[in-house]
């Protein structure tokens, strides 16, 4: 069966004065229909750029320099602007981090939803209102029909993000890319939105790519986890499996540094060193200078190899029984 989305060797670089910045460098993964995957990494690891690359939303000086993105077998890289536009919002939608920045402050919610509908065929005013109200109701906005005439600033932060999610759901896309949609919200609302999004995805049969720096959030919604570091995927596998038995030392470090995993009274564990600059990557494995398992072999870039049970990792010296 063809996967819903298949990304192969995707590479997105940014031309800068100091040479090409390889924000995404050879990323491959696939998603089945209705599947929720988590894309985890620190800022600068390339997780957001991966999300934008799928939709072809990379602004100059950035450019997709290689690889392929296939939606149900159809190649998206290299499509014309018009063809890409027909896919955005209709096949693949996106939700961003900060709803107060994404929604247009001077247009009513109803207008913004109508613009999103009109992008994919003409609709009458009353039809647009009816459909918008219906979706708003679904994402948990009470009194939706009346709220269509409100402006974004009249909603709370959580409600605003629900509006953005409603706009993304409006054309019933097959896939929604969520770029840290709960990061800007209060903790209590984060959990709410998370649960609602999972239920909505199930209900609409929508697949999701959940991008986040927060391992805990992602693992509560996704079934499969992809961990990125310095523009590459370094570990992949079913969530429960990866959390229980990380195979890449970086994932293990991330897990150990979660406060929930700390032992009472002990210092929190930190990964030594800091994220390398993308301009100045060490040879071979990008994590190797910070890794306590490194060996001379690590100056050669390890391949993403299978570690059993649907798992892959990019490491010469994997943990937890995955012998190299």
């Amino acid at each position, binding site marked *: 069966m063809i996967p819903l989305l298949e990304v192969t060797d995707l590479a997105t670089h940014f031309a800068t004065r100091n040479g090409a910045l390889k924000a995404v460098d050879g990323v491959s993964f696939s998603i089945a229909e209705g599947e929720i995957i988590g894309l985890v990494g620190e800022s600068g690891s390339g997780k957001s750029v991966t999300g934008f690359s799928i*939709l072809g*939303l990379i*602004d100059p000086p950035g450019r997709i320099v290689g690889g392929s993105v296939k939606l149900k077998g159809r190649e998206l890289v290299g499509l014309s*602007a018009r063809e890409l*536009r*027909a*896919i*955005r*919002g*209709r096949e693949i*939608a*996106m939700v*961003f*981090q*900060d709803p107060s*920045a*994404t*929604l*247009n*402050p*001077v*247009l*009513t919610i109803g*207008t913004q939803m109508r*613009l*999103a509908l*009109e*992008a*994919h065929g003409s609709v009458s005013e009353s039809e647009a209102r009816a459909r918008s109200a219906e979706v708003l109701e679904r994402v948990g906005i009470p009194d939706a029909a009346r709220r269509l005439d409100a*402006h974004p*600033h*009249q909603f709370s932060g959580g409600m605003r993000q629900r509006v*953005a999610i409603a*706009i*993304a759901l*409006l*054309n019933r896309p097959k896939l929604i890319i969520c770029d840290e949609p709960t990061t800007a919200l209060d903790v209590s609302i984060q959990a709410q939105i998370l649960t609602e999004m999972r239920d909505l995805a199930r209900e609409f049969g929508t697949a999701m790519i959940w991008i986040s720096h927060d391992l805990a959030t992602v693992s509560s919604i996704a079934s499969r986890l992809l961990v990125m570091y310095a523009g590459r995927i370094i570990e992949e596998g079913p969530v429960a499996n990866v959390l229980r038995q990380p195979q890449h030392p970086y994932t293990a470090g991330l897990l150990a540094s979660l406060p929930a995993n700390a032992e009472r009274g002990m210092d929190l564990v930190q990964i030594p060193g800091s994220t390398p600059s993308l301009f100045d990557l060490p040879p071979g494995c990008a994590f190797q200078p910070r890794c306590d398992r490194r060996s001379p072999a690590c100056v050669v870039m390890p391949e993403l190899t299978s570690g059993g049970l649907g798992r892959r990792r990019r490491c010469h010296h994997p943990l937890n029984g995955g012998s190299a």
Partner: protein
Amino acid sequence: MLGFMIQRLLQALVVMLVISALVFVGVYAVGNPIDVLISPDATQQIREAAIKAYGLDQPLWKQYIDFLGRLIQGDFGRSFLYNMPVLDLIGSRIPATLELTLVAVLGATLLGVPLGMYAGYRPDSIASRLIMTLSIFGFSVPTFWIGLVLIFTFAVQLGWLPAGNRGETATLFGVEWSFLTANGWKHMLLPALNLSLFKFAMMVRLARAGTREIMLTDTVRFARAAGESEFTILRRHVLRLISIPIVTVFGLEFGSTMAFAVVTETIFSWPGVGKLIIDSISSLDRPVMVAYLMLVAFFFIVINLLVDLSYAALDPRLRTRRAA
């Protein structure tokens, strides 16, 4: 809203008072007005009689109160030069200035905003560079010199358009207007072009800067991710967002354009208030100067008030804050 209006009106009143005091001191107290009022070889008796008649023997504050009292009754005195009531004189000249200014500012906005938006949308294209070069010239080249060049080119050398005066007028609401006749338009074209060039440059820059900033925001990215076309994004999102500063400048510039009409009217012998004030300045016709300055101040205050009100109409965030 009502409270806000009353507060603004009171402020306006105070401002008018302050300006009237400044104008009074500036125009009447600098230099000796009596030298201007009567011939230098008048006898001492005539002199003293005149001083008494004009109230110049009173202390300055008393003179100012009298002056204010006359203003409130609508008595701005008589023009020395034209020997008619100042208010009638200015009233007869205002329509000419008003129509010239309106045509210039409207033309500059209708042309400048789309071009500026394009320059902000594609900042590196050749057309954008051309637009920006044009705007730098419009900004830098003094209005009066452009006026000369326009006359030299289109009136003297090519003989296409007249070099001065209003041309034929037609009556509407009991007032003579040039824009109602073809010949009037022919006469208005060059001065309006001359007057609009600076405003055009300003609108281009304003629209460009706003568009450039907004194109980088998540609002635009989100609209793109929803599949909206670039044209829709520019027309519905960007234009709406930059309209707030543009309306402000439109309002404020309308006032300053009326003031700048001084130069254009002088060059093109356009019989408006600008020409009148230059004539009265060179002949030290003080009552006309005072009335003109008070009128301009009044105009500015009214425009500022209108701009503030249109803010509320354009920016829903302000509307609710004030209503609250």
